[in-house]
């Protein structure tokens, strides 16, 4: 059995917890997040013949009052960077967070998901905004925790990246 620690990172209220809730049925209630800043869930993903046990650390979103605790990211194999499509500033925070993680933890696999695709009409983020990031080799998906669109895909993609770390880092280079 392969186990991987995966973190959910993003600005406040981008829908990280909703995405996890859509992906798994968890054990702990949401109040853990506000008390100790993290909530943990688990999901088994089958990748070919290999089963990966993803332990998901859903970290409390960063806002002006609270920074993400970098210690929670220690030992993480990869992370899901979550952006709220309807709030442009969350993309900026995501970019900052990615840089912070890379600085603290190193270049580890991640997938950026632009959430709330069900509210596409209200989106403040356009494809043009995402293009430079895509250009940097970022894996970007659009999804919705509400409709489940893109949720499974983003986790699966991250799982694939986790299982072939060398390849991903090569691609990023």
């Amino acid at each position, binding site marked *: *059995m*392969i*186990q*991987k*620690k995966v973190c959910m990172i993003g600005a406040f209220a981008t829908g990280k917890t909703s995405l996890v809730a859509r992906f798994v049925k968890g*054990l*702990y209630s949401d109040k*853990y997040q506000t008390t*100790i*800043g*993290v909530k*943990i*869930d*688990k999901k088994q993903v089958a990748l070919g013949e290999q089963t*990966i*046990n993803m*332990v998901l*650390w859903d970290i409390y979103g960063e806002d002006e009052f609270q920074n993400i*605790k970098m*210690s*929670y990211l*220690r*030992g*993480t*194999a990869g992370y899901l960077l979550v952006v709220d499509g309807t709030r442009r500033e969350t993309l900026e925070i995501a970019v900052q967070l990615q840089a912070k993680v890379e600085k603290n933890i190193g270049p580890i696999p991640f997938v950026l998901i632009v959430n709330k695709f069900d509210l596409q009409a209200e989106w403040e983020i356009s494809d043009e905004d995402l293009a430079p990031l895509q250009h940097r080799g970022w894996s970007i998906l659009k999804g919705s925790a509400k409709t489940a669109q893109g949720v499974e895909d983003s986790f699966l993609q991250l799982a694939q990246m*986790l299982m072939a770390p060398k390849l991903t880092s090569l691609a990023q280079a």
Partner: protein
Amino acid sequence: MNHSNLEASQGEQSTEVGELEQLRRLLFGGELENLLKRPPVQAQDVSAVLADAIVESQQQSPQFSAATVPTVEAAIRHSVKLDSNILSDALFPVIGPATRKSVSTAIRNLTQSLNQGLEHSLSPKSFQWRLEAARTGRSFAEVVMLRTLVYQVEQVLLIHRETGLLLQQVMSDSASAQDPDLVSAMLTAIQDFVKDSFNVQAGGSLDTLEFGELNIWIEEGPQAVLACVIRGNAPQELRELLQDSLEKVHRSFGTVLQTFEGDTDPIAGSRLYLEDCLRSQFKGKSDSESSQKQPPTLALITGCLLLGISGWLAYSIWAQQRWNDYVNLLNQQPGLVVIHSDHRWGSYHLSGLRDPFAVDPQKLMVEHTSLNPKKVEFRWSSYVSLDQEILLQRLQRWLSPPSEVSLTLGETGILRVSGVASQDWIDSAMAIAESSDGFSADIIRQWDFSQLQSAEQHRLEQLQARLESRIILFGDGKSKPEMLTEIEAQAQDLKAFVAIARRLGRSPQMVLNGQADPRGDRAQNLKLSQERAQYVQEQLLAQGVPARVLAIKALGARGNTDLLGEGQAAQFRSVTFSIRDEGPEEQ
């Protein structure tokens, strides 16, 4: 041949050589040439580099291990097929301890739950616990365990320190727990949270989490963390055990932990060390102090109860035996028949038949047993026993014989009455004998009085013997004796004899035999014998003996002169007496 022809032929020759070369190359080729030039690969050359080659290929290609699996599997299968002993011998040192450990753990758990169940199944608390079990829907054993627990390690988690991922975990059989993967991550998060939130000094760690009776002890190592979920209050030794186990894990799996990338299979062996930590302790077992101060009431009560029961049993057996012995003794007595006997709550009841001549059962009890006669209730019905002993007693009572008379009942049914009794008694006894046929004819077929003598007759015989044994001696040639007192005694005896004989209806006579020794003249001797008898007769008459009972007989000289000495001759100078019965007295 012209020049051009020569050239042409030379050209042809060179072309031929080139073609031949070409053909040769085509035929044998470079490979063959190389093969011929290079020597073949020797096995020893390969063996020199084989080990390095394997290491190299393992490092370069992750598939190497996978590639060798079929070969290794086939080799193992082949080995087992050839001789299974080889592999089993090789595995023996591994399998032994592993099996032992597994079995001992299973037995320990079983014994523990059994002991708990047994110890508490009878205690007063058990009823309370049974109620609790019924109320909460838990098993009784579970409730007992919870209530008697000092501590129990319910779950041990080995967590990768960096990632918070679960490496291995073990649980006690009775515990229930949440998803250990999530618990591991959460514990790590909590550790981080505490470290971040409160300014703990570097290197410090969260050692203990407490919630009611639940404790989580955490031991941190360089690569891994051991978290131990404990119910109750564990002793400090457990902490040392945890540290020791964690050190062992690091020693055995240090490199694997350092390069850990999520694959937990290589660390599966750490389970053994974790199982070591699954300890528990229950009240009353190692709690020696309290058990010494306060002996378990249950054990005391049970002990007393057992002692009481065994004592009571021993007493009952003894009492029953004593009673049986007494009943047997009664049954052996003539004239007693025990029909029913029982023994209830310390009192005894006995009923049966008893001949009035039989021994007194109460007396027998006092003399032969330790039974209290007051506690025995007798119910006897009277009956007449035909037992010989009783029959004789009955006859004794009936006949009331004088002490000189004895009654014996022979096997042939002959009652022998022997001894001496007065004629009156003899007459009455004979009368009884004639009339008693009615009730005891079966037992006493015949009465035998032949050995019975009447007292008078007996006296008569005594007197006759005395009378006939006396001898009155005379001096040589004398007709008067010197022994006058003898004559007096003879007179007394004779008078008594005659009196008794008369009572018996007889008239005996005593003959006085006058005798002389053979010396001297025959006629003189006859005269002398006559005078001697007459003299004694006169003397007897003078003593009051009636004349009619006396008769004189002059025997003259007696004995042979030549054969007699002086001492013997003197015997014949005498008067002797003999009694003759003259038949019934003539009235």
